[in-house]
């Protein structure tokens, strides 16, 4: 079985035209002006992993469209009792779910769900793999600031290896010809990362990454995913922390983005987080209309 229509499993296999359609539709969405596109529909938020912004953002988006939302978290549910992913999926479907939004610590869990459960599945982050709604809201944020993708250069700095945000961003930006520079130490940014998509390259030097860059995307060092890998934090900070001085190495009108949660004093200084070029809270804000578009698309109402 292939995934139900309206599913959003990742950016890699999404066409550029479809991405633009979602972004365009998102511009018409406003959480303060509810539209009943999902009136009477049930959106099940299946969260196997902790989340603040993605979960609440999907919830607010679903409610703004008139849907009922049900939140199922791994702890305190049958999942804790050993129910399998697919059995949970079948159960949720039997309860009448119209859309399943899933966050899972294992790469590909949404794909497996979509393969067997005949309900549109939206990937809200799967392991190290993809985080498509984040990439779409980041694209939305970039376009609000830069008007077009044409000629843009984006530097993604930090823990690329463990980042589903980075993988989705690379796929998305590459589809629009954006030059993507991945920057960090070899443990976090392996050379093989450059094979993700055309126009993606790897550098170890932050100056190299920032020169001529229009968008600086920072990532958190994900201590919970290091799996025994040892990272020397003082060393990381010395080489890769985004400081006000380093921001100056990028283009004058460069914007600074971060999917959050941010750790002040680690991947960036407080000064940068609160600085004029930061768009970190805009990203959070933009998440809602973009997820409204994703949900509308899931039920075939993105018209």
């Amino acid at each position: 079985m292939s995934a139900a229509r309206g599913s959003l499993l990742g950016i890699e296999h999404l066409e550029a035209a479809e991405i633009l359609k979602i972004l365009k539709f998102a511009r018409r969405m406003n959480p303060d002006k509810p539209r009943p596109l999902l009136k009477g529909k049930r959106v099940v938020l299946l969260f196997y992993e902790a989340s603040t912004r993605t979960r609440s953002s999907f919830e607010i988006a679903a409610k703004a469209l008139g849907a009922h939302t049900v939140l199922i978290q791994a702890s305190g549910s049958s999942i804790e009792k050993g129910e399998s992913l697919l059995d949970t999926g079948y159960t949720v479907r039997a309860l009448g779910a119209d859309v399943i939004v899933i966050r899972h610590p294992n790469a590909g869990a949404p794909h497996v769900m979509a393969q067997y459960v005949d309900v549109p599945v939206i990937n809200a982050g799967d392991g190290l793999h993809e985080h498509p709604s984040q990439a779409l809201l980041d694209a939305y944020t970039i376009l609000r600031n830069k008007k077009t993708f044409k000629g843009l250069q984006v530097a993604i700095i930090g823990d690329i290896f463990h980042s589903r945000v980075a993988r989705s961003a690379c796929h998305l930006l590459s589809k629009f010809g954006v030059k993507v520079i991945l920057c960090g130490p070899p443990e976090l940014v392996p050379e093989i990362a450059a094979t993700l998509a055309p126009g993606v390259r790897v550098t170890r030097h932050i100056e190299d990454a920032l020169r001529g860059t229009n968008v600086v995307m920072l990532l958190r060092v994900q201590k919970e995913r290091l799996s025994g890998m040892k990272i020397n934090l003082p060393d990381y900070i010395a080489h890769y922390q985004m400081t006000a001085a380093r921001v100056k190495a990028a283009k004058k009108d460069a914007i600074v983005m971060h999917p959050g949660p941010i750790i002040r004093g680690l991947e960036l200084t407080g000064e940068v987080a609160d600085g004029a070029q930061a768009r970190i809270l805009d990203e959070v804000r933009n998440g809602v209309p973009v997820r409204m578009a994703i949900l509308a698309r899931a039920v075939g109402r993105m018209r």
Partner: protein
Amino acid sequence: MKTGSTNSLLIKGGHLIDPAAKIDGPMDILIEGGRVVEVAPPKKIKGADENFDARGLIVAPGFIDLHVHLREPGQSYKETIATGTAAAAAGGFTSVCTMPNTDPIVDSVEWVQWLRSPERSAVVNVLPIAAATRGSKGGNLTDFRSLQRAGAVAVTDDGKPILEDDIMRAALVLGAEVNFPVVQHAEDTRLTENCSMHAGARAFRLGLRGMPAAAEANIVERDVHLAMQIPNSRLHVAHISTADALKEVRRGKRAKTRVTCEVTPHHFALTDDDVRDYDSRYKMNPPLRSASDLEAILVALADGTVDAIATDHAPHASHEKEMEFERASFGITGLETALGLAIAKLSKEKHIPLGRIVELFTAGPARCFDLRGRGSLGRGYYGDVTIFDPKKRWTFEAVKSLSKSKNTPFDGWQLTGKVVATIVGGRVVYGH
């Protein structure tokens, strides 16, 4: 299983390929009392109770699989000796070497005897491989001598490696004393924690942690080094999958050390690039490797570095596979697709001679474990014969598999070369 038939069986009109006896031509074979009594040019042998018409077919010594998981004792929901050996017979295997990582672990004489008991209803020869260390915990060695006397053909901790240097050295030393091969599952598990496929571009793209090729090569390098220092030791590398590990085996062979190795059909038929859509039918350990590893495997299969094709038949229930890729069990079934893949991929595509392929299923594996009376059809050898049509194209359908489990990536594949009959001890156990 029953010992050889008392009736005599004449296999006539076929083309015999018996690499150990250097025969590649038309020959008739007479089996009596479970043993080969005569091999002669067509129409020279007369008078048997039964005849098998092998015209247009290849007749070969019974195939030997050095690496299968039949899941008994303890995991009969995945496979039983009865269903696993039925699948083996359908794949042309007359002898299968069973891995000890069952529940409990086969680390005692009692369990070796249990595996060989007629009550298991095996239709082909079951040759148990016993655990190398007690409970396969990697600590204390098992009693190689008693296990061997009970009928075990080798020792291994398969499923995991013998990691500690001194334990591996001790295993090779004891193995040398009793002339017992030590089979190594070469994986430096310190480098493969939480990994579910080969480390490469595909793993990075899928967001899956990757097992580096070095995790295999490092262990093989260490083991070959140890084997070279220990006179008469016998090292067998299970399911070898990387170019670097093959280099180490070559080094050992050049130094006249008794190091042997096996390759699985999936490692010469697929690469890590075939892992798509988180389909766990492509998940096994060792994982599907890179295209350059596959190239090295093809060279090694042709040049003699590889001694045997072994399936690593690893059945699992659907609920252990249809789940998150990272959580799904490692392993695929392989008994019924091995010959069809070998002829399609090695003979047709890579022009490796059919005689060499037969050797990899017969004389090669027999040599690895010193299986006396097997791997050839000389007079006095066991009457184990595999008869196949090397040109027959057919489509493998997993639902029709005789194995209890259907976890195979080759479902729906068009294969070349089909088993027509499998004969064990002069008795037809598969085919007409």
